[in-house]
């Protein structure tokens, strides 16, 4: 019996329905203290003086750290560039920056003591608007640090010294100037997206302590145990084996927990307190800790009257907040796909990541790609409408196909995009809409119109990266997969166990998966970029294969058969076609070790190949590409601007669905997040001060917003390198959701379009009245 491709019961489900999961905020350690942060109320200021003497003496306060406590350590860190202080040093660059962190016997005491810290600021000019920030006279956030490239860890994009532009990435094909000259029609528009929240219901949370010998132990709800370990080792100047990162089940991440956030300051505090300290953020603090990039995208397309796209130029600006975090990487990820999954002979694509005095950002499901997809897919429908071509046909005639050379210069492999689009279109009953939707003009006194929309996307997984795994087989025929892949609801521990069970011929229940613990589990790049099934899946499969080889070798000798004639199923090796000539795993252990104890090990470190030349933008961007499509049908009230999504379909090329149900759940999650950002989600700031940082004023999609009908479709175009042909799924469905909904709205409104997300009712009403005035 094999398990890959079946919907086995999700690992950990029993604990989830009984409330027995121990999430990071649930941990209790003996003598544990509680942390609270004093945060900057200024968006940009010099720190003149931090006086914490009164707070330190407050009964119940055990330790307190400020920038002064970082002496002797590497004060700045970051996954790409070391620009973020562990605790604010000399300057604060956004509202909510941590100025001091207190450890006390209770949360209440810590909270009270915060009021006793006095801070003197000297306010500096700040910049919040993306396009203002790139002007030559804008206040500069990282003037000193920007003088050299020191502290830049990665070279895959072009760092900019000086102003607020952090990085630039460019790639070109053909001759864009000539392309525009040949065009019959030119389309040129600007699209914007506001910052939005990841919305993981579990806040960031961690607990840290130091062992007497100077080893740091930290339990954290992170998506990236190896990355957090690396950063802490660097900050505290420790060998990596003196930093132990343990990750329990995580209550939602969506990219928001991909990088070190609480861990550095908390570790510093725990070192001073000499006791375990726990830090759980409140919801308004989560809003100050991470979010999706705001963006502005300028897109220009040259088209022949027959519908052929001959040139496209895209300039995308990503607002990354006060610290780089992964901004440059994600802006690069957006760059080379910013003309879409289309063959365009002449194109010039550039992205900029830009610092502002807004709170920090980070990777967000669909990283960098949701931004440009909103622009290029909205643009496709505008072009189709103007040229009176079916938007489906316009897309189909330009979509990349198996073996096509992409703008990065690489050949595309496992390209199921055409199937995804056709199936999504069929599923929403697409009939070649160009004009208004089925219930075109409002009639019979009703003010409601309907429309349908489609959108597609292409996205890379971060490349090159490394994942390693080891598998241990016990003498009783049970096995453990040791992996640093984080279980955060996506089902990694289920699908990885399916892969290992099949490789070892074991019943699914005989395979368990460890939680990440860097003392035990080997290196993994991170649980992000929907890379786990592909990368960790291969590592796990190959690690299990090593054990398989050992089992067959021992059995071959005992059974006097060639290993090629043996099969391994249901916990036993037998000679093919001779069911009586068989040995159970326990018997093989006995034959090999002389006893029914011991362990067999297998291990594998998988590294994907590739990378792009930052000068040319050429190379290999992706170990595998995601392809997906979305179809949406909406109802719009033209009087109030209210939109209801009636029907939504996502179609994703999974390569091979290891666990089809979980793939469907990932797509449903992507759909809802996309729906929220399409219609209402938006973080709002007033002079850098967040003004809707709670779930009362910042709404997440509820069951009332969920479309009346939803379908997740899976296309399976096997990838030659993936385990069983599998690729990633997690975020693939997200980028096309907002443009599909936007296109459905524009379709319902006879081409009237809102280009700035979210498409709120007031914007629709304003766009309709502007269109009426224009006549």
């Amino acid at each position, binding site marked *: 019996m094999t398990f890959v491709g079946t*919907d086995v*019961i*999700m690992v*950990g*489900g*029993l*604990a*989830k*329905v*009984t*409330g*027995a*999961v*121990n*999430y990071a*905020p*649930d941990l*209790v350690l003996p003598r544990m203290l509680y942390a609270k942060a004093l945060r900057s109320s200024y968006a940009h200021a010099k720190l003149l003086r931090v006086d914490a003497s009164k707070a330190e003496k407050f009964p119940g306060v055990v330790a307190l750290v400020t920038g002064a406590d970082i002496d002797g350590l590497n004060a700045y860190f970051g996954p790409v560039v070391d620009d973020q202080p562990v605790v604010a040093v000399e300057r604060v660059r956004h509202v909510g920056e941590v100025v001091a962190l207190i450890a006390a016997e209770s949360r209440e005491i810590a909270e009270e003591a915060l009021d006793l810290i006095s801070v003197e600021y000297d306010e500096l000019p700040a910049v919040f608007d993306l396009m203002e920030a790139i002007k030559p006279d804008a206040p500069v956030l990282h003037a000193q640090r920007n003088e050299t490239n020191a502290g830049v860890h990665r070279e895959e994009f072009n760092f900019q010294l000086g102003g607020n532009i952090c990085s630039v990435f460019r790639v070109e094909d053909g001759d864009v100037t000539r392309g525009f000259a040949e065009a019959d029609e030119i389309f040129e528009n600007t699209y914007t997206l506001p910052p939005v929240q*990841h*919305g*993981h*219901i*579990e*806040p960031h949370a961690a607990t840290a302590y130091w062992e007497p010998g100077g080893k740091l132990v930290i339990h954290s709800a992170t998506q990236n145990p190896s990355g957090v370990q690396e950063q802490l080792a660097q900050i505290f100047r420790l060998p990596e084996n003196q930093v132990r990162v343990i990750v329990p*089940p*995580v*209550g*939602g*991440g*969506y990219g928001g927990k991909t990088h070190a956030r609480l861990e550095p300051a908390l570790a510093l505090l725990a070192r001073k307190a000499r006791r375990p300290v726990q830090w759980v953020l*409140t*919801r308004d603090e989560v809003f100050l800790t991470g979010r999706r990039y705001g963006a502005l995208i300028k897109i220009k397309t040259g088209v022949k009257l027959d519908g052929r796209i001959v040139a496209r130029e895209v300039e995308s600006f990503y607002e990354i907040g006060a610290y780089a975090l992964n901004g440059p990487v994600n802006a690069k990820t957006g760059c080379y796909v910013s003309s879409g999954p289309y063959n365009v002979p002449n194109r010039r694509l550039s992205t900029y990541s830009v610092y502002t005095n807004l709170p920090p950002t980070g990777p967000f499901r669909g990283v960098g790609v949701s931004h440009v997809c909103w622009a290029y897919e909205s643009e496709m429908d505008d072009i189709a409408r103007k040229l009176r071509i079916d938007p489906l046909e316009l897309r189909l005639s330009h979509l990349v196909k198996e073996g096509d050379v992409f703008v990065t210069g690489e050949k595309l492999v496992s390209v199921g995009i055409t199937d995804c689009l056709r199936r999504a279109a069929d599923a929403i009953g697409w009939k070649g809409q160009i004009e208004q939707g089925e219930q075109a003009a409002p009639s019979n006194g009703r003010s409601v119109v309907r429309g349908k929309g489609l959108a597609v996307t292409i996205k890379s997984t971060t490349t090159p990266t490394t994942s390693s795994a080891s598998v241990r087989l016990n003498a009783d025929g049970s096995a453990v997969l040791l992996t640093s892949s984080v279980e*955060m*609801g*996506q*089902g990694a521990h289920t699908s990885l166990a399916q892969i290992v069970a099949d490789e070892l011929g074991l019943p699914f229940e005989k395979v368990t998966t460890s939680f990440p613990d860097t003392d035990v589990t080997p290196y993994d790049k991170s649980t992000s970029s929907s890379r786990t099934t592909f990368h960790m899946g291969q590592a796990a499969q190959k690690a299990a294969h090593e054990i398989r080889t050992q089992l067959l070798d021992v059995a071959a000798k005992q059974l006097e058969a060639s290993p090629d004639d043996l099969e391994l199923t249901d916990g036993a090796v037998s000679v093919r076609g001779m069911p009586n000539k068989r040995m159970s795993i326990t018997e093989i252990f006995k034959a090999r070790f002389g006893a029914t104890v011991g362990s067999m090990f297998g291990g594998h470190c998988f590294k994907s190949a590739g990378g792009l030349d930052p000068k040319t933008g050429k190379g290999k961007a992706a170990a595998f590409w995601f392809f997906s499509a979305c179809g949406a049908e909406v109802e719009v009230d033209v009087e109030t601007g209210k939109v209801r999504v009636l029907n939504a379909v996502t179609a994703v090329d999974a390569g091979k669905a290891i666990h089809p*149900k*979980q793939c469907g*759940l990932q797509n*449903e*999650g*992507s*759909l*809802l*997040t996309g729906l929220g950002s399409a219609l209402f989600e938006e973080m709002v700031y007033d002079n850098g001060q967040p003004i809707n940082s*709670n*779930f*009362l004023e910042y709404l*997440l*999609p*509820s*069951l*009332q917003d*969920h479309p009346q009908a*939803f379908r997740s479709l899976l296309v399976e175009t096997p990838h030659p390198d993936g385990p069983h042909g599998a690729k990633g799924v997690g975020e693939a469905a997200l980028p096309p959701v907002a443009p599909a909904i936007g296109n459905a709205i524009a379709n319902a409104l006879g081409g009237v379009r809102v280009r700035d997300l979210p498409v709120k009712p007031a914007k629709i009403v304003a766009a309709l009245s502007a269109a009426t005035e224009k006549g």
Partner: protein
Amino acid sequence: MKIAISTTINGRQIDAAVNGHQTLLEFLRDDLSLKGSVEGCGVGVCGSCTVLIDGRPVSSCLMLASNAAGKQVTTIEGLAQDGELDRVQKAFLKHQAFQCGYCTPGMIMAVTGLLAHNAHPSEAEARDYLSGNLCRCGTYVEVLAAVKELAEA
């Protein structure tokens, strides 16, 4: 100042001294180590701290522990009896109506409250009743499937 309360939690009488400002959620988590109810938003919007008070769903982050005096409190830990899951838990497991699971206890308690109030809810009624329980993983279709099965039982 501590307030003495006597309350029934998952069928057991609990006599305790609570702080005046202590929420029921803090009491459950910090004093009783019942960690199944979790805080998501702290303002009674996300539903992940939902417990039943005399059979009705309540956001325990908004209720003072002292107000639980004399009440019957049921948390996620109180649903299974002698290791046997109750029918809502079984339906969630069967339909895989969870992903990360953080909102799941609250969602299960809300569904329990819904069925106590309306044994055969329509889909529209279920959507309305459960719209105060947010799931960012987006597992709503499966929650509705679980409710549908329970409503038709």
